C-alpha cells in the first residue's frame, strides 16, 4: 500500500507531467486533460485515505533535509485543501471538457474553442500542480516558486478568452501578481537574513519580535493580500474573473485566491501567531468588514451576472479575514474549523456559480441579469444549481458556510468582541440581497424564453449542480473533515511535528 508521501509526490508530478504532454501533443488534450483530472482526484483520495490511517507526515524529497532540500509537510489543513481542490478541480474539468467541445460563435471563428482548448488544459494542469505544491510545501521559498507559477498560469488562463476586455484585465492581473510576488519574495529574503531558515514549522519556534521580522512580515502580508484581493486591493479581481472563460472563472474564484489566503492563514494563524499582538489582528479584521460591505454593495449594483459573482467573491473573502482576529481570540479550534468550512464551501459554491453563469451565457447569448426571466425553462438544472449555490453562499443551514458562520458567531460572542459576529450576519443578509437579485429572475416562470440554439451538454449542467449541492450539504457531514483536522492539527499550541533543524 503506497504511503502518504507517495501520493503527495504523485499530486505534484502527475499534473505537471500531463501538463507537459499536453503542451507538446495538443491534439490529445481532449483525452489527456480529463484523464489527468481523474488521476489527480484518485491521488487526492489516496492521500486522504492514507492520511486518515497514518496521520501527519513530513517528507523530504530525495532524502535532502532542511535547509537544502524540498520538504513536504502534510497535515490536516493541507489534506483538506487538497481534497477541496480535487473535488472542485474535477468538476471544473468535466465542465471544461463539455465547454471546449462546443462549436460556438460565427463561422470564421469556428475553431476558436478548439484553439483555446489546446492552451487551456496544459495551463490548468500546470496551475493544478502548482496549487498542490503550494498546499504541501513546508518552506516559504518553495511556496514562493509555486505561488509564482500559480499566478502566471492564472494570468495566461485569464487572457485565453482573447477579448480586449479580458486581455486588459489579464494585463492588470499580471502586474498585480508580479508586484505581490516581489513583495513576498522580499519578505522571504529578509526572513532568511534573520533566521537562516525558511521552514514554517521551525520558524514558528524561532520568531521573536525584531524590527527586521516586522518588516518582513509586512512585506509577506502585503504581497499575499494583494494576490488575495482583500479590500481595498481588490480592484483587479472583478474584471479578471468576470471576463475570463467560464471554466477559468470557476478556477480563479474557487481555487486560485485560496492559495494566497491559505498562506495568510498559515502565517497569521500559526507561524507568527505567537509574536503578533492582538491589536495587529484588528487591521485584517477591519479590512475584512470593509470587503464584506463594499463587495456586497458593488454586487448589488452590477448589471452583468459574471460581474456580480466576481464582486461576491470580494465580499466572501472578507469573511475569512474577519475570522483572523477570532482565530487569535479563540481558546479552542472553532475559529480555525470555521475558516476551513468557509473556504471549502466557498470554493464549491463559487465555482458552481461561475459554471452555471457560463452555461447561461452560452444559451442566452448575454448575461444581463434583468433579461434572464424564464431561462429556467431552457436550463432548469443550471438555474437550480445557481440558486442552490447562492443559498449556500448566503450561509443558509445546512451549508458548509452556515457551519462556518455559526462557529465564528459563537467564538465572537464568547470572546466579547461580538461586532465581528454581527458583521457576519449583516454580510449574510447582504449576500441574500445579491443572490436574490439573480434568483428572482432565474426562478420566475415566463414562457417562452428567447434562447439561442446552442446545445449545452448535460455534463456542463450537472457538474455545476453537483458542486452546488455539495456546498449545500457540506454542513451535514461536517464531522468528517473535522476528523481530518484533528488528526493533523495545524493549530498553534498543539504538538508540532518533529523537525530536524
Amino acid at each position, binding site marked *: 500500500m503506497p504511503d502518504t508521501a507517495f501520493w503527495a509526490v504523485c499530486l505534484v508530478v502527475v499534473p505537471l507531467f500531463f501538463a507537459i504532454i499536453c503542451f507538446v501533443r495538443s491534439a490529445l488534450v481532449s483525452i489527456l486533460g480529463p484523464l489527468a483530472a481523474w488521476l489527480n482526484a484518485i491521488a487526492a483520495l489516496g492521500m486522504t485515505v492514507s492520511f486518515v490511517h497514518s496521520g501527519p507526515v513530513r517528507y523530504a524529497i530525495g532524502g535532502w533535509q532542511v535547509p537544502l532540500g524540498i520538504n513536504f509537510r502534510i497535515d490536516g489543513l493541507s489534506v483538506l485543501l487538497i481534497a477541496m481542490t480535487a473535488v472542485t478541480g474535477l468538476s471544473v474539468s468535466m465542465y471544461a471538457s463539455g465547454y471546449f467541445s462546443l462549436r460556438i460563435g460565427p463561422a470564421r471563428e469556428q475553431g476558436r474553442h478548439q484553439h483555446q482548448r489546446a492552451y487551456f488544459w496544459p495551463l490548468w494542469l500546470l496551475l493544478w500542480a502548482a496549487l498542490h505544491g503550494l498546499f504541501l510545501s513546508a518552506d516559504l521559498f518553495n511556496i514562493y516558486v509555486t505561488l509564482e507559477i500559480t499566478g502566471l498560469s492564472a494570468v495566461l488562463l485569464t487572457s485565453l478568452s482573447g477579448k480586449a476586455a479580458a486581455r486588459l484585465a489579464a494585463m492588470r492581473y499580471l502586474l498585480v501578481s508580479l508586484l505581490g510576488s516581489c513583495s513576498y519574495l522580499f519578505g522571504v529574503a529578509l526572513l532568511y537574513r534573520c533566521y537562516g531558515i525558511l521552514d514554517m514549522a521551525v520558524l514558528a519556534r524561532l520568531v521573536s519580535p525584531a524590527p527586521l521580522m516586522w518588516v518582513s512580515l509586512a512585506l509577506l502580508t502585503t504581497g499575499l493580500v494583494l494576490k488575495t484581493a482583500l479590500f481595498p486591493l481588490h480592484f483587479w479581481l472583478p474584471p479578471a474573473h468576470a471576463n475570463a472563460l467560464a471554466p477559468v472563472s470557476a478556477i480563479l474564484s474557487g481555487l486560485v485566491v485560496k492559495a494566497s489566503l491559505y498562506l495568510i492563514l498559515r502565517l497569521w494563524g500559526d507561524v507568527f501567531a505567537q509574536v503578533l499582538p492582538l491589536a495587529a489582528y484588528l487591521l485584517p479584521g477591519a479590512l475584512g468588514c470593509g470587503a464584506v460591505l463594499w463587495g456586497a454593495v458593488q454586487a448589488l449594483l452590477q448589471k452583468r451576472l459574471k460581474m456580480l459573482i466576481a464582486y461576491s467573491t470580494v465580499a466572501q473573502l472578507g469573511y475569512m479575514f474577519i475570522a483572523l482576529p477570532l482565530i487569535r481570540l479563540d481558546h479552542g479550534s472553532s475559529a480555525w474549523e470555521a475558516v476551513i468550512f468557509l473556504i471549502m464551501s466557498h470554493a464549491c459554491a463559487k465555482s458552481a456559480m461561475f459554471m452555471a453563469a457560463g452555461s447561461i451565457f452560452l444559451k442566452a447569448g448575454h448575461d444581463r441579469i434583468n433579461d434572464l426571466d424564464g431561462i429556467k425553462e431552457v436550463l432548469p438544472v443550471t438555474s437550480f444549481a445557481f440558486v442552490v449555490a447562492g443559498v449556500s453562499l448566503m450561509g443558509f443551514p445546512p451549508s458548509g458556510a452556515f457551519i462556518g458562520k*455559526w462557529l465564528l458567531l459563537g467564538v465572537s460572542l464568547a470572546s466579547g468582541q461580538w461586532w465581528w459576529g454581527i458583521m457576519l450576519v449583516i454580510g449574510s443578509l447582504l449576500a441574500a440581497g445579491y443572490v436574490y437579485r439573480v434568483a428572482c429572475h432565474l426562478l420566475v416562470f415566463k414562457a417562452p424564453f428567447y434562447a439561442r440554439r446552442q446545445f449545452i451538454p448535460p455534463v456542463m449542467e450537472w457538474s455545476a449542480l453537483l458542486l452546488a449541492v455539495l456546498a449545500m450539504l457540506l454542513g451535514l457531514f461536517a464531522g468528517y473533515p473535522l476528523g481530518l483536522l484533528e488528526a493533523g492539527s495545524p493549530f498553534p499550541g498543539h504538538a508540532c511535528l518533529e523537525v530536524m533543524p
Partner: protein
Amino acid sequence: MNWGGLLLVMIMLSSLVPGLIIFALPEKSVRPRTFLNLGSAVFKLLLILVMIIGIYQGRHFAVRWQLLPGIELALSSDPLAALFSTLSTVLWLLTTLYAVGYLEQSPNRRQFFGYFSICVTVTVGIALAGNLITFLLFYELLTLTTYPLVTHRGTREALAAGRVYLAYTLSGGAVLLVAVAWLQMLAGPVDFGGPPAAASVAAEHKAQLIVIFFLFIAGLGVKAALVPLHGWLPRAMVAPAPVSALLHAVAVVKAGVFGIIRVVHDVYGIQYAAGLHLLLPLSILASLSIIYGSLCAMRADDLKKRLAYSTVSQLSYIVLGVSVAGPLAAMGGLVHLVHQGLMKITLFFCAGNLAETLGVHRISEMNGIARRMPLTMAAFSVGALGMIGFPPMAGFVSKWYLGMGALAADRMWVVAVLAVSTVLNAAYFLPILIKAWFRPQDCPWSEQGAVDDRLETRWMLLVPPVVTAFLVVAVGLLANAQISPLAWVKMIVGREYGP
C-alpha cells in the same frame, strides 16, 4: 437507529422524496403527479397516526445526527410536536386536493407541487425539531421553500410581494440566528422537552437572557406576524389560493407562533420567563396585534386581504394564551393553534372558490353570492362564525379557555381585549355573511366556465372547504372527547404545569 427514529425519518422522507420525484417528472404527466401527491399525503398521515398511537402508549421517538460537537440535528416526538405535525399533515392532504383542482390547466404545475411537497416536509420538520438548532434549520429553510410558492404567478405584483416577504423573513431569520447562537453560548446546546435551558444559566447573565428573549420574539415574530412586523403578510396575498390557505393556516405563520411557544415553554420555561417579567410585554404585544389586525381587517374590501389581517389578529390569540402564564390560558392558546388553522383554511378555500368560479375578489361584489354557491358560503359562514366565537364552533372553545385563563390569572384587561376583539371580529365578518345570504345580486360575476353542471364548482374545490368546515364544528362539539385537539392540549399543558 431505532424503530422510533426510523419512523420520524420516514415521516420526513414521505413528502421530501415525492417532492424531488415531482421535479423530475415532465410537466405533462398530470396523473402520476396527482397520484404521487395524494398518495404521499395519505401515507404521511398514516405514519403520523402511528406516531400518535405510540405517544398515547407513552413511547417517545427520537433520532439524532451529530454535525459537530455542540451542533446536533435532532427530531423528537413530544406531544406538542405531534399536535402541530398532525395539523400540518391533515391540512396538507386537503390542500393538495384543493390545489390539484385549483391549478387545473395552469402552467408550471411541476414546480408548484414540487415546492409544495418540500414545504410540507420543512413544516413537519419544524414541528418535530428536537432542539433549537434543528428548529432554526427548518425555520430558515421554510423561508426558501415558500418563496417560489408565493411568487408562483410570476406577475410584477407577485414578485414585489415576494421581495417584501424575503426581506422580512430573512431579516427575522438573521435575528433568530443571533439569538440562538447567543443562548447556546450561555447555556450550551438547547434541547426541547427537557428542563428549560435558560433556567440553568447563571444568575449574573439574567440581563443577557432578557435581551435574548426579545431577540427571539423579534426573530419569530416576523413569521408570526406580530404587529410591527406583520407587513409582509397582507402583501403575500397575491399567492394562489391554496398557498395562501396553507401559509395562513399552517406553514409560515404557525411556524413563527410555534417557535414562540417553544421558546416560552421549552427554552425559558413558563415559570422562569414569568420570573424574569418577560411575559407581560409579550401579552401586551399580542393584545396590540389582536386589536390592530382587526381594525385593519375592517377597512379592507379585498376579501383575501381582510382574511389576512384577520390572521394577524387571530394568531396573536395563541401568543396571548401562552403569555398569560396559567394552565387554562395556555390550553386556550395551544388549542387555537389547531382551531385557527381549521377555520382560516376554510375561509381561504372559500375565498379561492369565489375567485376561481365567479371571479369575485372584493367583498362589495359578494351580494347574493350564497344563492349561487350555497355550499361554499355555508362553509365560509361556519368558519367566520367560528372566528367570531359562536358556540359550538372551534373558536368558541379557544376563546372560552382564554377568557377563563385570564380570569384565573387575574388579568381583567385580557378579558377586555378578548371582548373588544370579538366585537371587532363580528364587525368585519358579519357584514360579509349578511351580504352573501340576504342581499340580492347587484353586480355581474364573470363565470369562469368549465364547471360541473350539478355542483356549484369543481368537486376538488368543493370537498376541502366542506370537510374543514365540518371539522370546525366537530372539534368544537366534541371538545371533551378523548380524541379532540383539546384533550391532547390538556395532556401537553398537564405535563407542563404538573397535575
